[in-house]
C-alpha cells in the first residue's frame, strides 16, 4: 500500500511538474509572440488562454482573495504577470498551495493567523497574489503590469459610498445631499 502511494505521489508530482513546465513554455512563447515591450503604459500582453492556467493557481487565487467568482481572464493575467516578474514565483506558489492544503486551512482568514503566514516566502507569495487582484497590477508605477482597473478588488469594500475613479455614483451634486455616513 505504502509503496503504491509513493509511486502515485511520484507520478502525480511528475504530472504537476510536467504540466507546470508545459504551461511556462506556452506562456513564454505567448509572451515572445506578443512582441517587444510597448512604450504605451500598461498594455496587457498576450496571455495563455484562461483554460490553460494552472488550476492549482486558480484555486489559490480564489482562496487568498476569498472570492470564488474571479474572472478567469483576470486570473490568467495575474498569473502571467507574477511569473514574468519573478522567475521563482511558480515554484513558490505551488509550495504555498501545498502548505495550505497540508495545514487544512479553511480560508484566508485562517491563513492570516496561522504560523504558515510567518514564513517569509509563503507570506510574500500570498501578498503578491492578493496585491495583484486588489490593486489590479503587479509591480510599481510605470513598470507595473496591468491586470484590471474596474474589477480591482480594492474598490469593492467602498462601493456603496464612493465611485470608482472616472465613473459617477450619482447625478450632479449628489454628494451635497449626504447628511449621514456609516462609521464602520
Amino acid at each position: 500500500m505504502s509503496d503504491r502511494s509513493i509511486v502515485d505521489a511520484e507520478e502525480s508530482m511528475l504530472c504537476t511538474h510536467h504540466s507546470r513546465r508545459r504551461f511556462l513554455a506556452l506562456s513564454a512563447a505567448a509572451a515572445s509572440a506578443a512582441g517587444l515591450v510597448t512604450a504605451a503604459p500598461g498594455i496587457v500582453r498576450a496571455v495563455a488562454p484562461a483554460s490553460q492556467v494552472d488550476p492549482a493557481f486558480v484555486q489559490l487565487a480564489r482562496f487568498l482573495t476569498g472570492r470564488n467568482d474571479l474572472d478567469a481572464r483576470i486570473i490568467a493575467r495575474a498569473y502571467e504577470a507574477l511569473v514574468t516578474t519573478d522567475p521563482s514565483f511558480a515554484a513558490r506558489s505551488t509550495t504555498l498551495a501545498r502548505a495550505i492544503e497540508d495545514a487544512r486551512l479553511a480560508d484566508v482568514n485562517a491563513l492570516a493567523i496561522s504560523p504558515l503566514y510567518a514564513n517569509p516566502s509563503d507570506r510574500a507569495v500570498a501578498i503578491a497574489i492578493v496585491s495583484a487582484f486588489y490593486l489590479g497590477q503587479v509591480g510599481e508605477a510605470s513598470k507595473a503590469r496591468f491586470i484590471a482597473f474596474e474589477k480591482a478588488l480594492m474598490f469593492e469594500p467602498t462601493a456603496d459610498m464612493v465611485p470608482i475613479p472616472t465613473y459617477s455614483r450619482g447625478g450632479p451634486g449628489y454628494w451635497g445631499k449626504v447628511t449621514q455616513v456609516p462609521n464602520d
Partner: protein
Amino acid sequence: MLLIARLTCLFVMSSLGQAYAQPADSGLAERGRQLTVAADCAACHTSDRTKPMAGGVPIPTPLGTIFAPNITPDPDTGIGSWTDEDFYRAMHKGVGKQGENLYPAFPYEAFTKLSRSDVLAIKAYLFSLPAIRQTNLPSELRFPFDQRWILSVWKLLNFHEGELRPNPGRDPSFNRGAYLVEALAHCQMCHTPRTVTMGIDASRPFAGGEVGPWSAYNITSDPVSGVGNWSTEQLETYLHTGHVLDKAGAAGPMGDAVQHSFSALPDQDIHDIVTYLRSSKAAQDADGLKPRYAWGGAKEDVTAFRGSEDLDHPDGRTLFYGACASCHGIDGSGSRDHVFPSVFHNTATGASSISNLVMVILNGVNRTVSAQLTYMPGFAHLLSNDEVASIANYVASTYGNPGAANANAANIDALRAGRGRTPLIAKLLWPGITLATIVIAWALVWLFRVRRRRRSEGHAQ
C-alpha cells in the same frame, strides 16, 4: 381650481356652439395665456425668453428653414395692427393679413379646430404682452417652395377647415382630451405620418412621424408599436415630468414641449389628454418586435478589453466607455439615483429608428421641470460623424434594438444641420417639373405641326 372649472366650462360651452357671457378682459387674457401654454406657442414664437413671442426661432422643414414671426402687438414688426378677423382668419384658415397663404409649419391644421372665443382669448393674451420691435427673418425655402400660391394647391389637397365639434357619444373627459390634443397641443402635427402630398394621414393617427431629424414615435394604443402597454399613470407622469423610469425620457422638441407646455398643464388636462390618446386606434409598425422601452439590459465585459484597447482605431465600445460610461455606467445602467438614465429600457435606444439616439448624442438633453434639471451635454463638437455613428450603433446593438444599428456617418451631417429626410415630393419635384416641361413642350410642338399641316392642307384645297 375656479379658473380650471371656468376654463372647462368654457371649453364645453364653446364647443357646443352656445353663446355665453364674455368674462372681464383680464380674465380673457389669462384664459388666452393658458391656451398658449397648452398650444406651446412659445416653442416657435419665442427665441429669447426675455422677448416673449417676438419670433425668430428657426424651424427646419424638409423644404428649408422657416422663421416664426413676431406675434407681439408691435404695429410695425408684430401683429399690433391685426383685427380680430385677421387673427381668426390666420388661425382658422392659415391666411395672413395680406391674404397670403401661411406655411403649415404654423400648425393651423390643428388650430382651425379652436373655437372662435378661444382664438380671441389667445389674441387678447398676445395683445397684453409688451410690444417688441423685432423684424421678422425671411424664410429660407428652396424654389419653388417659396412661392406661396403653391400652398393653395396643398390646402386643396390636405387642409380641412373647421372648429372641432364634441362627440356626443363620448364622455366629457374624452371630448376635453380631444380638444386639447387636436386643437391645442397639436400632437398629430408630429406624431402622425404625412401623405405623399404632405398632408396629415388621417387613416393612421398618431402612428408616428418625423420632425426634421427627430422621430416622433407611434403613440397609438398598440401594445407593441405604440404606448398601449404603458399604464395611465406612466403616460401622465411622462407628460408631467418628461421621464418615466426604465422607459423613456423626453428630448429634442418633445423635451421642450414637456418643459414649456405639458408640465404646466393642470392634472385634469393631462388626464384628459391621456384618456383621448388611449382611445386612438392601434397602428402597428412594420418592424415592431418589442415595445421600444423593452430592449436590452445591464451588460458589461470590461475585462475583455481593459488594458488592451487599440486607441488609435477605436471601435464603438471604446468610444462608449471613453465618452459615455462615466455617466451611463460600466454596464449601461446609469447612476444609482437614476438621474443619469440607463441606456437600456430606453425608447431612444430601443426604437427602430436610430435618429433620436444620434440627435441626443449630438445635441444632448436639457430640460428643467419643477426645478429638476435633466442635462446631458451635446457631443457635436467633440466627436466626428464616424465616432457618433460608431457609438450609436454600439449602444443600439448592445443595449437597445440591434435592428436599429444602421447609423451612417454620411447621414449625420444632415442631422447636425437639423434636417431630416427629404420627402418624396421634394425629391421628385424637379425631375417632375423637367419631365412635365418636356412633355408639354413636345405636346405644343406636335400640336403646332398638326395645325400647320391642317392649314396647309386647307390652303391647298
